[in-house]
Every structure is written in C-alpha cells, then in structure tokens.
C-alpha cells in the first residue's frame, strides 16, 4: 500500500481547499467544539501546506482569521459591557462622583469578567491552534535558525525570530491590537485605558473598605503582564508596565498625599503611625492578592514617600508629635515613629534631628536653671542646706547655693541622659544612629555650660565629703559611675583636671574625705576612662600623702632616738607636698604680695625649734630639696584652760585651730590676763598677712562659740586700732572645740578666682598647644596650615578642644621664636620645622 503515502511526489494539494478545512476547524475551536475534530487530520493538513512551501501563506491566513475573529466577535462582547457608569468613569475627571459606588462596582466587575474570559478563551484557542500548526512553527524556527546561522541540529530550541513572531505571539499581539487597542465607541477611549481606570476605581473602593473581587483584577493584571507593547516581547515593554503601573503609582501617590495630610490634621501622631503602617502592609498585600508582586517595592516606595518621607517632619512637629510623646513617656508611640522612619531611611534624619533638638532644649533648660540658682539671691525655700549657721557671711551662703546648683545640675544632666537611654532602649530598639546622636547632643548640653568642669568636680567633691557617708558599696559604685558618665561627655578635660586637683587637694589636706579607698577607686576609674597621663598628677598627690605619713613617723622616732623626751615639746605632723603637683593656690585667698610675708612668720621659740628641727631632719634625708612652709594651711591642737568655763569652774579645752590662730593665741599665753594687744601689735609680733590675721581674729574674738579673746570695741569687723585681750569669762560645755576660720570655703569659685583659673588654664593650654605643634612639625618637617590645624586638634582632643585662634597665635609665636618658618614658595600656607 505504498502509494498511500504522502510525499513530495504526490500531486499538488490545493491550498485554498486545505485552508478551508483548517479555517472551518478553527472556527469550531473558537466556538468550543474542538472535541469533535481530529487532531491528526488538522495536523496533517497543516503539514502538507508547509511541505508545499506555503507556510508563509498559512501563517498570514491564520493571523487574518484571528484578527477578524477578535475585532468582530470578541470585541463586541466586551464593548457591550461598558455601561453608562463605566463610560462616565472613563470619560474624565469627575466620573467617579457621578455614579454610585455599587453601580460602578457591578459594572466594573462585569467588564473585568468579560475581558478576563475573552482573554482566557483566546489563550486556550491559540494553544490548540499552535498545536495543530506545530509543524509550521517548527519549520519556521528551523528557518530562522538557518538564517541566523545557529546550528539547529545541535540545539533544537525554539527560536524567537526578530522579523516574524511565532504564531502564538502574533495572536497575543492581535489581542492587544484588536481588543485593548480598540476604542470602546467612536471617539471613545481605548479599552486598555478603560481597563486601567476600572481597575484603579476598584482598588480605590478596596482602599475605602469596600469588598471587591480581587481574583478578577488579578486575572486582568495577569493578562497585561502577558502582553507586550511590540511583538518583540521585550521585558520592559510589558503592557502592565506601560499602561497600568504608572497610573496606579501616580493615583496612589495622590491618594496617599491627601490621606497623609488629612491624617496629620485630624488625628494624633500615634494614630498616624499605626495608620501609615497599616496602609503600607495593606498595599503590599494588595500587590500579592490583587495586582502584581513586581509592583510591591514600587508602591511601597510611593506610600513611604507620601506617608512617611514627606510627612515625617510634619508628623514629628505635630502637637501630639515627638515632643509630646517624650514629655508623656509614650514609649510605644515613639517606637512607632521610629519604626516608620527606619523604613524609609536607615539614618532616620528627621527623628534624630527632633530628638537632638529636644535633648538640647531640655539640656539648655537645665543649664539655665543652674545658672539662675547660682547667681540668684538666696532663695527663701528649697535652698536650705542643713546646718547652715546664720552668722555666716552672705558670700558663704551664696557659695553653698552654688554647690547645691552644681549638684542639681549634675543630677539633672544624668537624669536627662538616663531618661533618653530608656527611650533609646525601649522605643528606638537600641539604634546605633540615635545612640550617636544622643551622645552628641548630651555632650553638647554638657559642654554648652561653661561651668560644667567645675560642677562635675564639685559633684564628686560633695559626694566624697558627705554623699557617700551612709551608702552601700554598690551605691557608691553607682555614684562614681555617674560622675564618670558625665566626665565622658566633657570636652575640656584639662579644666576639669584643674578643678579636681584643687578639690582633691583640699579634701586630702583638710582630711575631709570620707574614704581614701573610694578616692582611689575614683582615680582608677578616671585612669580607665581618660588615660594614664590624666591621673598621673592626681596619683602623685596620694603618693605625697603616704610619704608624708612615713616622714612624720620617721621624724617622731628620730626625736625619740635623740632622747629629747620633752613632754612639753610640740608634736609635729607634716605633709610634704611636691610643689608642682599640688594646686596650693587653692588656699591662697589673696594675691601674690602676701606670699613673701608668709614666709617671714615669727614663730614663738618652741615652734621655731621644731621647725628647724624638722628642716634639719629633712635635709639629712633628702639633700638638695628646699622646704617651703605653707603655714596658712596648717592647723594646731592646743590645750587651753579657762577659769570659769564650766559653771564658773576652770576647765581645760582641746582647741583645734589654724596655725595662725595658734600663733595669735600663744601671744596671750605670756601676757597678763588684763593686758590687751592692738591689731597692729599682733601683726608686728607674728607677721601674719593682714587679711589672714583679720579672718583669724574674727573667728577667735567674734564667733560666739569660740570667743577666746575679747575685742574692743565689740563689732563684727576687725579694724585697725582694735584691741584684744584674753577672755577670762569664756565658757563652753564642749571639751573639744574646733575653730572654724571664716574663709572662702571649698566651694564654687568666685568671679575673681574663676578668672584666675581661666587665665591659668589658658596658659597651660597654650603650652600644650605649642608642645603638640612642635611635636607634629618635628615629625613631619613640612606641613600645610590646614593639616597642621587638624592634626593639632586631633592630638589634643583627649584633653580639650582648643580654640583655633589660640592655635594660630601659638604658631605665630613659635615662628617668632624660630621653631618654625613659613614656606614662601608653597601654594597653600605651609610651615617648615627648624631644627
């Protein structure tokens, strides 16, 4: 039966007839009657046409057929669903308002459903057509491969042509042109445009809380994603990307812009945050369920832009914004704000800015409060430092007030920091950026206050003297830690060092410190925090104290060995202080002129004897060292008997007074009880500087509890010509009497002292700067001005932040002294180191 076979040798088949068979079958397929057709027969017919080299014609016929079918049958069906509500919608701007939501929804769904079904039918039918035309498709691919020079024998992949699309792609293109590209009625809108508008309308309903058919929209979006602008099927030219997405994004942007503004007006910040979060989640859900996931990042950006990025400032500045949240400890809401801004920017600029400004405002308030309390006249209430004696001078009270202000300032600053630490942990998820900003702003608060160094030192001082008295170890630890925390933020560490030294010096010498252990702990903490060089001098002070104890002991045993077992002998305990280490000027109440006279004090014999005795002893131990007696800092224990002290009976008191006080009182030992001395006589006999003398006389003759002398005339002030004599009638129940010297106590500095400290500080800074500059230049030999400045700032940043002008002046001075010279030929101002 060989002649049954078909091949090239069989008579020509008639193209028109064969196509007729196929066309009829295709019509059946489109009307869903395919199951009556024989695949084999259709395939065979198409095969034969191609074998007769009529593939091209077949292709065109099929395309024509499809175009006809789509433009008539399918299009009519779809256009019929565009009812008046939809026409209004697609026509223009006011369309939405003109018909009710329900009407539009039903009409829209009807339209979408028809379109979806048409699309799906088209897909199915074209699948079947392609199956039937499989041989044509394969030869087409082979031809293209041959044309392109690719070896089809090796990889028989389906080749997409650059000139002629596959029949399936062609058919998809036809759907795009004949259906989506067509107008819904003469002079109407393109169906694609209507489709976009209907979908957007439905989405808007969804946003307004109406129920919509998400699957229907998804199916239509799926169609748009499957179609391309041209037959080349370039990924970027998807109809979805060209026709739908831009509109979707722009309407969404408009919607959220409006909604964001409305929310800002109508609700509070917390609600806004929740709403924004809800909207963002909702939009990404919508992409998943209704549109396309590829749009998720884009719509998220739109919503984030409109609801967060552009509104963040407004949100933060709302009445119920960040300021309100912080004032009212709204941890959760703050967390929401944080979360929102983290979405759009990892650096969270707006929130950080707001937090910084709030911290600075609060810090400024603290600084201002401290300033006003420190200068204000003694406040009537709230300022009662316990144990304050009424006769004390006004200045003393003011000083105490300063201390209180200092304590309050440090505590307030710490409280501020702790408060924001809590916010940081609970609301801001321990965020690094915010942490940095917080540190910076708290540091700014601390450094903006010009007394911060002094106040921090005072805070420690106060705690060392009183605060830690009844505290457990853990509490002391916490206090120390607090001090260190504030110190960490402080820029002018050199100034702090000056104050701390001064305060420490007084604590040590006057034995005011509660515990030397705690002092040492503090020093070691500072060492960890600020480095070795910072604590070097402080440690030296402690060393001096220990050495002095040994010295005193050594001297005592030295005396004992000498065998001068004189019971009346005055006992000496001494502190030898290294002169550069100790800020002894802290004790010098007055100016330079008095230093000379201090060294020429006239001591009574017994005192003079041990003074020279010790000097000898010391010179033996350490040769080549010069001892300078700081008589203004010493104190003396004396026994004094007053005849009528205890109810008219004699009584011996232990009196502790300053060295000056002792000298004055000793004068009266040798005097008959009735005889008196004038101020001038006393000064001549002792050579005590006048100011010190006056103050000591005040405590010995004016203060009621320690009135060992009688002053004539009786008045508060000590004037030239005043006379003093032994007070026989002194009476006191207390055995041990401590004579307080009216002095500028160990408190905040006065204006004058501050100026001095500042001046001294500037001088030492000057030296530090010069040293740094020389060191840098020595290493670099040549350096531009700007670089030198930067390096100097870096080197010194650990100690203080130098003033740029000061550095310039120092450089000038170094040039004058020929350490450096200017480079004339350099393009930028530069210097050279002169060895």
């Amino acid at each position, binding site marked *: 039966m060989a002649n049954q*076979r078909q091949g090239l*040798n069989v008579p020509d088949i008639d193209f028109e007839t064969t196509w007729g068979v196929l066309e009829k079958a295709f019509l059946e397929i489109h009307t869903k009657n395919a*199951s009556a057709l*024989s695949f084999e027969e259709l395939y065979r017919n198409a095969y034969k046409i191609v074998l007769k080299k009529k593939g091209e014609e077949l292709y065109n016929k099929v395309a024509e057929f499809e175009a006809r079918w789509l433009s008539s049958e399918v299009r009519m069906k779809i256009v019929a669903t565009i009812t008046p509500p939809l026409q209004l919608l697609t026509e223009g701007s006011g369309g939405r308002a003109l018909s009710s939501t329900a009407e539009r929804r039903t009409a829209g769904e009807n339209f979408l459903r028809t379109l979806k079904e048409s699309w799906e039918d088209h897909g199915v039918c074209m699948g*079947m057509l392609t199956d039937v035309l499989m041989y044509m498709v394969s*030869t087409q691919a082979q031809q293209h491969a*041959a044309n392109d020079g690719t070896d089809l024998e090796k990889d028989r992949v389906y080749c997409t042509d650059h000139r002629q699309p596959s029949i399936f792609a062609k058919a998809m293109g036809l759907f795009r042109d004949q259906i989506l590209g067509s107008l819904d009625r003469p002079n109407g809108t393109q169906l694609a445009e209507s489709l976009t508008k209907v979908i957007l309308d439905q989405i808007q309903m969804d946003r307004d809380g109406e129920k919509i058919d998400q699957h229907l929209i998804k199916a239509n979006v799926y169609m748009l994603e499957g179609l391309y602008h041209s037959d080349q099927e370039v990924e970027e030219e998807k109809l979805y990307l060209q026709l739908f997405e831009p509109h979707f994004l722009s309407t969404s942007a408009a919607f959220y812009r409006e909604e964001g503004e409305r929310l800002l007006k109508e609700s509070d910040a917390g609600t806004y945050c929740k709403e924004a979060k809800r909207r963002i989640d909702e939009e990404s859900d919508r992409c998943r369920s209704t549109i396309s996931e590829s749009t998720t990042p884009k719509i998220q950006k739109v919503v984030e832009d409109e609801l967060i990025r552009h509104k963040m400032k407004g949100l933060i500045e709302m009445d119920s914004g960040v300021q309100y949240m912080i004032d009212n400890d709204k941890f959760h809401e703050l967390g929401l704000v944080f979360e929102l801004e983290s979405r759009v920017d990892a650096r969270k600029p707006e929130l950080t800015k707001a937090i910084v400004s709030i911290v600075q405002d609060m810090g400024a308030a603290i600084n201002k409060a401290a300033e006003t309390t420190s200068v204000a006249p003694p406040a009537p209430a709230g300022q009662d430092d316990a144990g304050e004696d009424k006769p004390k001078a006004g200045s003393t009270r003011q000083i105490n007030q300063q201390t209180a202000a200092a304590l309050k300032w440090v505590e307030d600053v710490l409280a501020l920091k702790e408060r924001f630490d809590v916010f940081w942990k609970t609301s801001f998820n321990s965020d690094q950026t915010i942490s940095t900003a917080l540190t910076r702003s708290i540091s700014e608060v601390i450094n903006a206050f010009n007394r911060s160094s002094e106040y921090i030192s005072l805070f420690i001082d106060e705690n060392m003297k009183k605060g830690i008295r009844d505290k457990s170890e853990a509490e002391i630890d916490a206090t120390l830690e607090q001090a260190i925390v504030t110190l960490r933020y402080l820029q002018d560490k050199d100034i702090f060092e000056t104050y701390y030294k001064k305060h420490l010096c007084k604590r040590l010498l006057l034995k005011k410190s509660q515990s030397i252990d705690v002092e040492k702990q503090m020093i070691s903490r500072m060492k960890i925090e600020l480095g070795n060089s910072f604590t070097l001098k402080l440690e030296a002070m402690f060393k001096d104290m220990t050495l002095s104890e040994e010295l005193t002991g050594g001297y005592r045993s030295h005396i004992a060995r000498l065998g001068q077992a004189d019971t009346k002998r005055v006992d000496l305990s001494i502190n030898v202080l290294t002169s550069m280490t100790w800020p002894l000027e802290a004790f010098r109440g007055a100016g330079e002129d008095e230093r000379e006279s201090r060294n020429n004090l006239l001591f009574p014999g017994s005192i003079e004897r041990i003074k020279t005795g010790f000097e000898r002893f010391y010179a033996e131990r350490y040769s080549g060292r010069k001892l300078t007696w700081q008589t203004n800092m010493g104190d003396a224990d004396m026994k004094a008997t007053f005849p009528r002290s205890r109810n008219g009976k004699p009584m011996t008191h232990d009196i502790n007074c300053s060295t000056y006080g002792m000298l004055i009182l000793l004068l009266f030992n040798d005097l008959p009880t009735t005889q008196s001395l004038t101020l001038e006589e006393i000064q001549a006999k002792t050579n005590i500087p006048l100011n010190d003398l006056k103050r000591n006389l005040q405590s010995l003759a004016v203060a009621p509890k320690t009135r060992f002398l009688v002053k004539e005339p009786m008045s508060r002030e000590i004037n030239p010509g005043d006379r003093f004599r032994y007070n026989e009638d002194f009476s006191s129940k207390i055995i041990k009497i401590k004579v307080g010297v009216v002095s500028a106590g160990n408190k905040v500095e006065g204006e004058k002292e501050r100026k001095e400290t500042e001046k001294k500080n500037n001088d030492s800074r000057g030296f530090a700067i010069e040293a740094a500059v020389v060191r840098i230049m020595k290493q670099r030999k040549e350096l531009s001005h700007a670089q030198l400045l930067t390096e100097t700032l870096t080197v010194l940043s650990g100690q203080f932040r130098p003033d740029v002008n000061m550095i310039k002046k120092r450089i000038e001075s170094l040039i004058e002294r020929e350490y450096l010279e200017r480079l004339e030929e350099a393009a930028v101002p530069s210097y050279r180191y002169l060895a």
Partner: protein
Amino acid sequence: MEVEMSASSDSLPAGYEYKTERFPKNADPLREGIKKYDRVHPCCMIQANSVRLWRSNDLSDLTVRCGGREWSVHRFVLCTQSKYFERAVEGGFKESTEKLIELQEDDPKIVGLMLSWFYNRYYPADSAQSDTTPDDYLSEAQVHARVFALGEKHLLYGLMDKAVDGFRVEINEWWITIGVAKGIVEVYNMTSEASNNLRELAVKMVCTHRRDVMNLDSE
C-alpha cells in the same frame, strides 16, 4: 521539545553495561536485569521497563491505528518523547476523548518501526521486509529514508538521527547495490529540503564513487 530518555550505552557510567540482546526472548527483562546485574543503573531499569511494555499490552492506555493495523501503546512512553503525541492526546481534540490516534495516510510498516523506536530507542530495519511480496520489497536504505520522513513529520528528532545513522551504514557499505539507489530516490522524493542530512550523505557518496556510479547507471 523532545524528552531524551535514551539509555544508550555510551552515556552510561563505567561499570554498567546494557544490551537488549542479552535478554532471553521470553524472560522478563526487568527481573533478568536485576538477577544478572546486582547494580542496575536507574536508566537501565527504565529502559528495561520500556522494553517489557513494548512486548506486552499491559497497562496500555492508547491505541494507534494505521492502515488496518493497531498497536496498544502507552501514553507515558509516547507523550513524554513526542510533542505531537502529547498534544494529540492532551489537546482537547477528538483523540483526547477516544484515546485513539489514527494515522490515516502513513505506511503501517514504518509506523510500526517508529513505535518500536519509542520503546527501544531502536528499530529493526530489516523487519519491514519480512512479510512482503517482491512487489513492495523495501531495501534497508529505503526503510531508513521513510523512517526519516515519518520522524520529520512528527518532529521526532531522535528518530531522525537514528535513521540517518542507519542510512549512513547502508550507503557506505552497500553503495553499489540497487537497494541503496532506491533509497536515494526515496530520499529525494519524500523528505523536505530543510537541513536534510540524508541528501548530504547521498551527495557525498555519489562524489566519492562517481565513476562507479556512472558505470552502474550505464548498466
């Protein structure tokens, strides 16, 4: 498009050897396979299975009819290897419901070879002559040419390759015979021009032996 599930021996890992002929005609090749080789490559198993199915009608779910002959075949075997059969069975046409494919205008002998190839990756070209009268006697070269044509019609590239191989052997060994000559005529009559390896082979042969071929013609 074509699912290549061949287990030709050159693609097997070392240590595996498989030849269809090794199995006794009536034995179950799968069982034998397991018995004979303690390690059987999965591809061998599938191939063995496929051979077994070819010999029986077990599990058949599709009928191919051609020129009065019928084959009970398996959709799994055909559809996985041929887009044509897959679409015919799955495509929603009459064949889908009837589970019957009627190849109306093809040569049943060649169709039989094609189906054999589906199962065995091999077709016995000589078997086409077994029950023939001298009238429609086909030389092996002719058979190969026709198989090639049928393969091309149904887009079975593997089968086409096989046919080319067979044709090459014929034309190289028996170029002098009348059978080959008939085969060449068949090639020019029945196959299309596009990337046709058979025509290339024929041209090459004629070039190599042109003098002898001339002589043949004159005889």
